[in-house]
């Protein structure tokens, strides 16, 4: 490939993909991408035919999140390209490295409103890290190489490469080694890194009530080991963002669980009482902070972040550390003082105990099936290294609360964009990253139906997934908001679904309905005996709410707590300190 033999632009596409180590491409053919598809027949890279291009982008994303490598999606021009948009935006908000390759009408037709022409580079400017329109065969190789580099470097993200049909058909030579990544020496006006590090260490040493926040940056930079060591050396407990779950083992004594809107009560309470936050690889999303004016006002803040544009965006910080999360964690670890913070840990432990009567896990099922119980049981019954891919809504939050993730990349979920329909295709992507591991899809009855067409893809590819549909007959999270903030006016939230068991069977997949808690282990045994994908229709309690809940924009301390039974009400109450 490094050399003389002229190849068509379409062949060069596959040459680059193969040499980049791409194992699988998720795509859908069409007029403007046909030369690339034709050349695919002589490539070793596997192709997965999706049922809708949104699925292709989510699969590439799911592959990327499960593997840490760049995921690739392929689509034609016009509607093929625009169908990718939701998936690209999802990858953008969650910093997931994917490369989307789209066919474009031939260059003489550009701008003429030709059949299936869309200005997809124009459309995707705000939702890609970068994008390219390529109209010469000789540019395809270097551009694709740069696209992979842009997608995975720094803060990762999606890149789109739009290639005109004539460029795919024309011939060119391509020298792999001639391309060199560009290095820009980007200055920042932030605090000098050495000074920042020294200050951060002094602040950590001095803090009496510190918290470490683990964001997705911990996962991206493989900082888990260093983070465990740092937490243990300093005795500082670790709270996680949604995308940070798994970055710090849930069973570790210093693991607190998730923060934010549906975070644990003791975590949010601790944040409001903390005197120092050490935020690592996270971006202080509004779902994490609630009202910014009252957020962690007693705490100094250290922000470890690779993207300078995130510093002081939402929360003003005292010390910015513009670094890779693992590098920063390692450097802090080396110089920080070993100490204990038992009174602080005890007070958090106290809050945990006070919160426990409200825990839905302690409430009797009374013959009903509660989604939160399903999560807990599935977590207990599944493989330790299982990958869980969740959709968006109540089930996603219950999963985050009750599925204990012990290692990075065991939870794949759409956080920033909150894309319903993400789970099923993303799990298909994850399957190609990990052919052997147990993979669970957790989706609501609403979100599942958004991309349910990908069941056909599963059947065609012959892959095995466990698909748990948490079926409550409502768009549950919106219904919860209606219950709490719109006086139970259930506008457009009741949803009727097909018979999911029959739907599975229509795809030659196994379907199992579960309506009681006792039925869960039996269903799982049955599923394990089944060679292919199994769809579980969990018929859960219709009107259940996720607690605690910090209403959007409210103070973190103003959590709505799960109501307790009359008997529990008699017992002394825990009042949250400010």
């Amino acid at each position: 490939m490094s050399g003389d033999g002229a190849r068509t632009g379409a062949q060069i596409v596959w040459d680059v993909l193969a040499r980049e180590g791409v194992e699988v491409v998720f795509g859908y053919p069409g007029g403007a991408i046909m030369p690339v598809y034709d050349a695919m027949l002589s490539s070793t890279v596997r192709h997965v035919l999706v049922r809708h291009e949104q699925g292709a982008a989510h699969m590439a994303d799911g592959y990327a999140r499960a593997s840490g490598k760049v995921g690739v999606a392929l689509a034609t021009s016009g509607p093929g390209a625009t169908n990718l948009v939701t998936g690209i935006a999802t990858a953008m908000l969650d910093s997931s490295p994917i490369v989307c390759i789209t066919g474009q009408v031939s260059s003489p037709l550009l701008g003429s409103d030709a059949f299936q022409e869309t200005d997809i580079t124009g459309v995707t400017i705000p939702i890609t890290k970068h994008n390219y329109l390529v109209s010469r065969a000789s540019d395809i190789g270097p551009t694709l190489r740069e696209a992979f580099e842009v997608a995975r470097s720094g803060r990762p993200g999606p890149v789109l490469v739009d290639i005109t049909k004539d460029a795919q058909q024309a011939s060119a030579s391509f020298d792999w080694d001639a391309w060199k990544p560009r290095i820009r020496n980007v200055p920042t006006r932030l605090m000098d890194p050495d000074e920042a590090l020294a200050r951060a260490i002094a602040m950590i040493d001095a803090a009496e009530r510190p918290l470490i926040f683990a964001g997705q940056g911990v996962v991206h930079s493989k900082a888990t080991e260093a983070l465990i060591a740092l937490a243990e050396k300093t005795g500082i407990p670790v709270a996680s963002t949604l995308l940070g779950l798994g970055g710090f083992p849930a069973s570790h004594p210093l693991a607190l669980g998730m923060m934010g809107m549906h975070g644990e009560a003791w975590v949010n309470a601790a944040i409001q009482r903390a005197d120092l936050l050490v935020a690592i690889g996270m971006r202080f999303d509004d779902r994490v902070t609630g009202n910014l004016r009252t957020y962690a006002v007693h705490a100094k803040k250290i922000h470890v972040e690779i993207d300078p544009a995130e510093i002081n965006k939402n929360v003003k910080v005292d010390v910015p550390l513009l670094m890779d999360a693992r590098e920063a964690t390692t450097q802090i670890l080396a110089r920080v003082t070993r100490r204990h913070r038992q009174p602080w840990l005890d007070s958090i432990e106290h809050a945990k105990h006070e919160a426990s009567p409200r825990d839905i896990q302690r409430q009797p099922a009374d013959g009903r099936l509660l989604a939160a119980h399903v999560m807990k049981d599935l977590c207990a019954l599944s493989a330790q290294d299982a990958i869980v891919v969740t959709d968006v809504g109540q089930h996603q939050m219950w999963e985050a609360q009750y599925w204990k993730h012990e290692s990075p990349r065991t939870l794949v979920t759409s956080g920033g964009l909150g894309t319903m329909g993400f789970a099923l295709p993303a799990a298909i992507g994850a399957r190609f990253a990990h052919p052997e591991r147990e993979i669970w899809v957790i989706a609501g009855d609403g979100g599942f139906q958004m991309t349910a067409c990908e069941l056909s893809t599963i059947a065609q590819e012959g892959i095995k997934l466990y698909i748990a549909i948490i079926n409550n007959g409502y768009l549950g999270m919106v219904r919860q908001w209606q219950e709490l903030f719109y006086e139970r006016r259930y506008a457009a939230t009741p949803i009727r679904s097909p018979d999911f068991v029959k739907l599975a069977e229509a795809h030659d997949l196994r379907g199992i309905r579960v309506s009681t808690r006792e039925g869960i282990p039996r269903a799982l045994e049955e599923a394990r005996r089944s060679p292919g994908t199994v769809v579980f229709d969990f018929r859960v309690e219709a009107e259940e709410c996720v607690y605690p809940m910090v209403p959007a924009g409210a103070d973190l301390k103003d959590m709505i707590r799960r109501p307790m039974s009359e008997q529990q009400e008699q017992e002394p109450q825990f009042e949250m300190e400010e």
Partner: protein
Amino acid sequence: MSTATVRTFLAYLEDKPGVLNRVTSLFRRRSFNIESLTVGRTERPDVSRMTLVVRADDDAARRLEAHLWKLVNVLQVDEVSNAPAIVRELALVKVRAPEGVRAAVMQLCEVFRARVVDVSPDALSIEITGAPDKVDGLLEMLRVYGVVEMVRTGTVAMRRGQGGVEGVISERPGAAPVAA
């Protein structure tokens, strides 16, 4: 926190189609308020240069710069707000100037070192180049006579001293030849 002031940035960009679109898209999406934006060629055929004037406090300015750096086609960003720099703008002003007041208008032009570039029976067209506040000053005076039409180019700026683009941009741009 500092208060918002007018700030001037120079951005060196790869000269490729769509680059201006990326920059304006960034400003729109992040709600930065552009006072003026000009873009043009430089002495290097593959590099174009943008002068951006925005109103921002210290932190917003820093984040704006960080966002500009995130654009792959941006080669260099330089804030010259507080640096020794030549800052210029050009304006064309058509002002009502019948017989009786024409001499007074022309005298004003002389004071501001503006040039009369077109004359018609009732109007003069004036070209002025200078720092934006000088242009403001002339416009303020001309308003009395009646401004018929006016256009300003927006600010361009250059650091004083001997450094040039080559000195600022150390590496060759354009690893991938075509970027939309």
